[in-house]
Each structure stands twice: as structure tokens, then as C-alpha cells.
């Protein structure tokens, strides 16, 4: 009998816990978690990628290499709305040229707009297992993603005001529980425990804290390693950090209805990929009276570059400062800290003057 597949997906924030859940509870397969992203991952990726491709391509390629080193025999790659849809084919070619032997399941091939084709992809990963079980695992993984995103949202909004400094511990434990969960009960239970623990901590938050909204490209904004833990850094300065861009909001909850109509003054049509969501979120932050917006993008990200003139106009109209951050594989902490501190000082000063 054939050994169980060892499936891996490149690292992306903590979302790998959901994949692990799908693979292990829904499919008859094992999930290999690539090591957490590191300098080594980036170096491996950058060295073997074309120069001008966007940074997420390099990072995910590096993570695939590390997954194969860790014993994976099947790499799963997701489709997407931008260049991401083409990542898989080129990455497979690069890995083969490097001499790796493995099976590559490129979901882009099945992403044809016809749901039947996606089902075909499921059968490829998982020829024997019943579709009912797979469907249930997919549903439960979706719940997991919602919980993960809700806890993460709570965490970054509040952890900067926690005098007991126990927020990180609760959050880390919750993430660890997500990776260990084997059924829906355990997922819900971990969520309840973490929410309750957060509630029990009395925060030392001013009535009108500095609030900064984060927007940006799908990969970089949701992956703390890729954005050099931007949210944690801001929270540590005493900022309430808001980010609407996450998988739960964007894919599972529809991400706000009629976004394009709401941002009509700035953009009549979509500028591709995450652009509409980003502009809408920026406008939403501005309307709610936030103190600043930070746009996070990887070097070479096209939709994010294209919306920069729009964000500039939005910044003028709403009188809200916007900081544009571009991340490449050489980004260092020091440069980021300098810019964040300057931005924070400016935002804080404006708040004092305006209040």
C-alpha cells in the first residue's frame, strides 16, 4: 500500500494551522510544517528566484525548499488574483531545476472558474477519502481561520496597553492550540479560553488612544515575518493597531459589501487583486477618525503600487497621514524602526494639536 502523502504548503503567517487541519482531518495524509520563516528562508528563496519578481514569490519558494528538506513529498500551491496565480508553475520549474523530486499540486491549474475543477483537485490530493469528510474538514478549518483572525485582531488592538504583559503568552498558547486541534470542539474551546483570558486582563488604555490602520498586499500584510512584525512594533509603542485585511474578513465574510460603490470617488473600477479592499479599508479607517494609515507592500507588488496615487488623494481629502512601506528581501529592522518612530512622533503631535 502506498504510504501516506506528506503534504506541505509554504508558510504564511499562522494560517498553516488551517492547512494542517484540512490535510490531517480531511485527507488521509500527513502535513509537514515547514520551519518558521527566517533569514535563511528568504536567502534561499531570493537566490533561486528571478530578481524582479515580488518578494512573496521568493519567500514562498524559500519555504518550499525548507519543506522539501523537512521531508515533504507533495507541495501544494494556492491560486490567486494577481501574479500569485502564476507562482506555482514557475516555482515547480525552479525546484525541479534544483534537483528536487516531489509531487506538485498546483491549484492554479484547477482554478478555472468552474467549481467542478476544484473538486477534481481535491480528488488528486485525496483519492480515497469520502467527500463528506473532506467537506466537513474544510468547514471546520474555516471556523479555525475565523477564530484565529478574531483573536489576532483583539491581540494587536489591545496588547500595547496590557500592564501585566501576559497578552503574548495567551496569544502564543492559543496559536499552539490551533496547531494541535483535532476537532471542532477543541477549536472552539481554545477560542473560548483565549477570549476569556483576554477579558480577564485589565487594560491600561486611555479613552482616546492613538489608532493606526494597516492595509497592504495579501501576503506581506498578513505575515508578521514578512512585514518585520510591524503590528507588534506599533503595539509596543502604545498604539491600537487595526487591520481589516485578513482571510476571515476577505474570503469568509465577504469583506464588506459593495466596496467598489463606496469608494467611487476614488476608483470607479477595481485596480486588481486587493486594491479595492485596501482603498475601502483606508477610507473606513479615515472615516472612523483614525490617526494614521500604514500601507504595507512587498517590492514589486503592482496593485499596491497602483493605488498609491489614490491613497495620496485620500490622505489629502481626509487629512490623515499615510506611511508607505515597501519590503524587499533585504529589509532590516533598524530602517523600519526609524521610520515608524518618526511616523509615531508626527501622529502623536498632530493628535495633541488637534485635541
Amino acid at each position, binding site marked *: 500500500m502506498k504510504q501516506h502523502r506528506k503534504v506541505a504548503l509554504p508558510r504564511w503567517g499562522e494560517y498553516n494551522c488551517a492547512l494542517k487541519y484540512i490535510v490531517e482531518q480531511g485527507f488521509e495524509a500527513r502535513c509537514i510544517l515547514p520551519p518558521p520563516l527566517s533569514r535563511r528562508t528568504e536567502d534561499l528563496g531570493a537566490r533561486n528566484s528571478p530578481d524582479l519578481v515580488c518578494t512573496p514569490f521568493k519567500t514562498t519558494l524559500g519555504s518550499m525548499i525548507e519543506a522539501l528538506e523537512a521531508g515533504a513529498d507533495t507541495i501544494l500551491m494556492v491560486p490567486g488574483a494577481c501574479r500569485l496565480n502564476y507562482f506555482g508553475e514557475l516555482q515547480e520549474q525552479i525546484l525541479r531545476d534544483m534537483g528536487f523530486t516531489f509531487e506538485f499540486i498546483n491549484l492554479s491549474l484547477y482554478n478555472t472558474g468552474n467549481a467542478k475543477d476544484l473538486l477534481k483537485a481535491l480528488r488528486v490530493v485525496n483519492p480515497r477519502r469520502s467527500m463528506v469528510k473532506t467537506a466537513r474538514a474544510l468547514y471546520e478549518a474555516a471556523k479555525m481561520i475565523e477564530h484565529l483572525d478574531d483573536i489576532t485582531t483583539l491581540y494587536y488592538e489591545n496588547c500595547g496597553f496590557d500592564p501585566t504583559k501576559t497578552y503574548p503568552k495567551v496569544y502564543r498558547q492559543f496559536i499552539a492550540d490551533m496547531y494541535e486541534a483535532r476537532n471542532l470542539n477543541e477549536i472552539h474551546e481554545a477560542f473560548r479560553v483565549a477570549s476569556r483570558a483576554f477579558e480577564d486582563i485589565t487594560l491600561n488604555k486611555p479613552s482616546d488612544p492613538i489608532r493606526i490602520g494597516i492595509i497592504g498586499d495579501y501576503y506581506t500584510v498578513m505575515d508578521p515575518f514578512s512585514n518585520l512584525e510591524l503590528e507588534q512594533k506599533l503595539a509596543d509603542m502604545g498604539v491600537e493597531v487595526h487591520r481589516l485585511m485578513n482571510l476571515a474578513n476577505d474570503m469568509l465574510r465577504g469583506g464588506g459589501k459593495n466596496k467598489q460603490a463606496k469608494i467611487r470617488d476614488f476608483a470607479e473600477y477595481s485596480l486588481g*487583486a486587493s486594491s479595492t479592499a485596501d482603498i475601502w479599508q483606508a477610507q473606513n479607517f479615515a472615516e472612523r477618525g483614525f490617526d494614521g494609515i500604514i500601507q504595507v507592500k512587498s517590492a514589486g507588488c503592482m496593485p499596491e*503600487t497602483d493605488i498609491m*496615487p489614490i491613497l495620496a488623494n485620500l490622505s489629502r481629502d481626509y487629512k490623515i497621514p499615510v506611511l508607505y512601506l515597501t519590503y524587499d528581501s533585504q529589509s532590516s529592522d533598524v530602517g523600519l524602526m526609524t521610520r515608524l518612530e518618526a511616523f509615531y512622533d508626527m501622529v502623536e503631535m498632530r493628535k495633541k494639536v488637534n485635541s
Partner: protein
Amino acid sequence: MNESRMPAIGIPRAMLYYRYGALWEQFLQALGVSFQLSPPSSRGILETGTRLAPDESCLSLKMFMGHVDTLVGRCERILIPRYSNYGYTELFCTRYEGLYDQARNIFRSSGQRFITCNIDAQNGSPEAKAFELFGVELGFSARQSRRAWQEASKALKQKQKAEEQSQKELAAKPGMKVLIAGHSYILSDPYLGMPILDCLVSSGAVTLRADALESETARKACAKFSPTCRWIVSEEIVGGVLHWKEKADGIILVSAFPCGPDSMTNELLIRRLKGMPILPLVLDTQSGMAGVETRIESFLDIIRFQRGDMV
């Protein structure tokens, strides 16, 4: 100048103009709408565009914004068609998708009016419908617009066919042949790509262009070679390379810094076309011709050496 004397439509001579311009011009002509093109690319236009566009955008976008700038205040409306998709798996680079709204935002304070033709089949506006709506917005009936579009698409097809035919004759000529591949808005641009083509010709190479091929033929070839490549214009270039490569002694891949689709399709071509000399050339705002010339000359030397012309 009196506003009524201005041409109704201004067309920036950049980006997709070089691919679909014949279609737009024919369409407007058939309806009798007056239009004006921006002047041919120049250093000045690129410099203006570089100042206006976001720093990190591609060379072609910077050039495009420079062209838009030359039209501001000189026509009633500037036409920037929005090419988004022909269907779920037939896409365009997101840059063409965003051009219209991006330009509107960059030139917001100028008061200039813009008009688009929104080709977005996924959202109920395939090409035929898009041009119908475009015609209606210009003040014509849906029927007139449809007919104008049919005429115009025929003209575009014929133009492509003619280009393919004349290249067939070129490919039959003896001598060293170089296939040059890149977006037509790079290759045909008098400031960006033309100097490269001139350099090749003056070095005595017969120059074939990957984009001189009927779209269907090219895209079919590309679908086999790279099934998940879904940018129509990139498919045409990759398909063109595959179609013409047998006739060529070497390939030059010209792309603009930092072109998104090219960064990936060119890499795939280099990795999958083994045994063929390939020179990737990336143009940026600082490009002086001297560096490019040196690289082309040494590339041609390699080809000559391989052909045995230089023993």
C-alpha cells in the same frame, strides 16, 4: 483655445495603444469622432511621467503618464480603455486594469475629463458590450456602436495578419536572425525599443518580432507550454517566441523595469528553452544606449560564433 475646437478624444500613445490602438482609432473613425494622439515618446515625456507616477511603478507606466500629461487641457476627454479580462482565465496585467483610475487620481487637480471603455467580461462587460457602452457614452446609438466595433476589430485582425505575413517573408531571408520578444509598447516605442531594433539592423541581423503573430495562434502555443499563464498579452509574446524560435539563431527578451508578468514568463522561457542563446535586457529610466549596444554586440558575436561565421 476654444473648447469646441479641441478634439473630442485624446489618446496617449503608450501602453496598449501599440497593441489595440488600431481598434480604437478605427472605432472612433467609423463613428466620426475627432481624436488626437499624444506626440511620439521622448526623453522629456518620460521625465514628466517619472515625476508623476509612483516611484516603484514600471517604466511603461511612467512613460504612459508622461503621454497623458501632454494631452491634459488639449482635448475634451482623454481615452484610457480599461482592459481587465475576456473571461475567468483570460486576464490582463493588473496595471492595464488600473490605468484609468490611477490616471484620474494623478491628474485630479487638473480638472481634465477622462473616458474609458471597460472591458471586463467577468463583470458583465465583454469587449463587444464594452465598445457598445463606450459608443453610447460618446452619443451614438447602440447599433451604430456595434457596427463600428465590428469594423474596427476586423481592421485590427487584418493588421495582425499583415504583420505575420511580412514577417514570414523576412524569416525566409538568409543570414543571421534574431528574435526579439517584448511588449509591443516597448519594442515599437520610438524612445525605448526602436533604438534596440535599429542597433540590430545596423549590425546586419535580420530581426524577427515575437509579437508579429495572430493572437489565436500565439495563445494556443503558449497554453501548451505554460498552462497557468493567463495574461493575454504575455501569452501572445510567449506564444510568439515559441512560434518563431525555429527560424531564429538567438532570442532577445526585452522588458521594462520592473515588469510583473515579464519577470516570470521570461524566467520560464529561459529555463525551458534549453540550448538557445537568450539575452534578457531590462530597460529602466536610466537606460543609456551605450550599455545596451555593448550587450547586443557581444550577444551577436556569440551567435556568429555558434553559426560558424566567426571561426
